């Protein structure tokens, strides 16, 4: 169940990566910036067709090997479900929820059907072609069900929306808390999708993010509070960790966490900092989630509204400054939050002797990012064609990846037990000293924790389950 949800979280990354470009085009095209109407129209197009983009992206993300035919199937399934259910109830508007359901169903059915080995279907791309056809037909039948059921679903979500709106600042705070607590599992994208794309409506547009960019003055309350956290809070935490590191490690830690802090400030990508301490100091992470919740609550209560198309960094802050309500308040609030984070982190680390990066016992490594990135960005994946054309030891297909991991872990004879735990490999080995940290890092691992002589944990991200499945046959 958790593993499935994590895959959905990861599948949402591809469509989410499209948003900033839409936001840039929309903002730069508008009269108060470059005033190029056709650019704004193109940016608007992306927003208008986001549901279909979600359907394609989720289907692809869930499909085995991320095959493109799953994208085609997801697109067709979403169109059929939309038109079909509207033919039954003209009020039905599948929008994002329908797109997500279409994407999930497609991904699942695609994997189910494409396993079928039907003789003589090679002219149709094998089982995958068959899968697309079966998904098309299934979605025709499902649209009948959707047509009848959807009004109730819409009512339920409207009720949820009204309830959330009635809770005001408290609701925003709860959302902030939950959003950060779900980060380790990658599940924050699941609730974000509801809040940003479904919650509330304004001139036919739904979701806090969409409504904000459509000019709804009440929207942005669930995004504004992230600016102080991401631009100032987490960089403050990073500074605390750098100063708390042992003097001889401080420079190395400053290199990793300094660039992570800059990344958070500029773009609002915070996982590199968060992953640096969430496994090493879970209590500190809970504290971070509480502070995020409180900040969102206070910012909401003060009536500050601001939004982003990607995340709450400087870039989005500058682009959207004219859309924001009392947006400049976020800077002084952010400075206070930054100091607060620094003090809380620095003294917690010192007083409770938390093993943040640079404070580990000899031989243990530092944790970095990697978890949220595409496999090609971190070099943890290469396509089969690349594999065939390369002689480098770092060229890895998924089969080779497992073999490389086994070697980096000291060989099959060193590994006594291996199991996956959400984003980590838990290992029982003969000798932890035989584990090659540098090699593991090059393979895409973001953290290596040697707990004692026989136990170690390797943070590899959501591929953990898959990787263990691949490694086990090699032992």
């Amino acid at each position, binding site marked *: 169940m958790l593993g499935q949800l994590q895959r959905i979280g990861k599948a949402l990354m591809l469509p989410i990566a499209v948003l900033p470009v839409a936001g840039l085009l929309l903002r730069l095209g508008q009269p108060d910036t470059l005033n190029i109407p056709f650019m704004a129209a193109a940016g608007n197009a992306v927003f208008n067709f986001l549901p279909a983009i979600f359907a394609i992206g989720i289907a692809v993300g869930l499909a085995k090997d991320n095959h493109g035919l799953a994208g085609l199937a997801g697109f067709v399934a979403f169109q059929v479900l939309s*038109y079909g259910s509207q033919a039954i109830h003209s009020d039905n508007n599948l929008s994002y929820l329908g797109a997500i359901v279409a994407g999930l169903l497609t991904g699942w059915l695609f994997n189910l059907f494409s396993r079928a080995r039907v003789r003589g279907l090679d002219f*149709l791309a094998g089982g995958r072609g068959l899968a*697309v056809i079966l998904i098309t037909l299934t979605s025709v039948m499902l649209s009948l069900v959707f047509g009848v059921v959807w009004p109730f679903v819409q009512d339920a979500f409207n009720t949820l929306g009204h309830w959330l709106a009635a809770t005001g600042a408290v609701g925003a705070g709860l959302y902030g808390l939950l959003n950060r607590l779900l980060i380790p599992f990658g599940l924050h994208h699941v609730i974000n999708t509801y809040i940003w794309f479904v919650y509330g409506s304004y001139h036919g547009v739904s979701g806090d993010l969409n409504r904000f960019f459509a000019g709804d003055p009440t929207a942005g309350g669930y995004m504004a509070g992230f600016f102080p956290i991401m631009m100032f809070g987490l960089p403050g935490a990073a500074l605390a960790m750098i100063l708390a590191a042992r003097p001889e490690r401080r420079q190395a830690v400053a290199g990793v966490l300094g660039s992570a802090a800059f990344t958070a400030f500029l*773009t609002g990508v915070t996982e590199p900092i968060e992953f640096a301490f969430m496994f090493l100091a879970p209590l500190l992470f809970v504290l971070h989630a509480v502070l995020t919740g409180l900040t969102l609550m206070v910012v909401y209560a003060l009536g500050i509204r601001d939004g982003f198309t990607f995340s709450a960094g400087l870039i989005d802050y500058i682009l959207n400054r004219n859309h924001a309500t009392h947006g400049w308040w976020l800077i002084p609030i952010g400075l206070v939050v930054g100091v607060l984070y620094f003090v809380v982190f620095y003294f917690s680390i010192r007083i409770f002797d938390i093993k943040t990066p640079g404070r580990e016992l000899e031989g243990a490594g530092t944790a970095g990012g990697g978890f949220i990135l595409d496999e090609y960005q971190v070099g943890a994946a290469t396509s089969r064609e690349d594999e065939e054309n390369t002689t480098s030891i770092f060229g890895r297909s998924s089969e080779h990846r497992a073999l490389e991991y086994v070697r980096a872990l000291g060989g099959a004879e060193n590994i006594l037990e291996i199991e996956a735990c959400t984003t980590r490999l838990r290992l029982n080995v003969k000798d932890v000293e035989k584990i090659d940290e540098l090699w593991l890092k090059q393979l895409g691992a973001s953290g290596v924790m040697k707990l004692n002589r026989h136990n170690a944990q390797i943070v590899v991200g959501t591929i953990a389950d898959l990787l263990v499945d691949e490694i086990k046959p090699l032992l």
Partner: protein
Amino acid sequence: MSAKVSTFSPILLVVAVVLGIGAILYWLGLPTVLHVPFLVSVGYAILSNYAAALAIGIAVGMAKEHQGAAALAAFLGYEVIIQGASALSKSIPTDDKSAFILVAGLTAGVLAGVMYNRFYRTKLPAWLGFFGGRRFVPLVTALASLFVALILGHTWR
């Protein structure tokens, strides 16, 4: 592996079969045949999106290992071309029977396929890392499509 067997044409054939299914459903629902408006609607859902489906099919067919990021990029490029160009010139027809959407679909499909094969391994600096790898493909395709929209918007008659 099947990656060796399946190349460009089987993918396009799948698109053709799906569009065929749409056509059959549409025809079955017509008043002169079974007279089921629901079937007309679902058939129309597929048929009216034929150019987008074609764009996706071409891109997936061209992309290395038929990766899905190319599918998403193709659809994105398709919409950017149509919306961008029609904002430049009000005389461009964008209904589902116009030749313009076919041109947009073909262009976006090829563009996304080329862009995938060129950029899927892009390594960005750490602070932009989230957009690296295959996620970079929809972004560059959207930007390239913007130029196509600019050209078509000024030249389409």
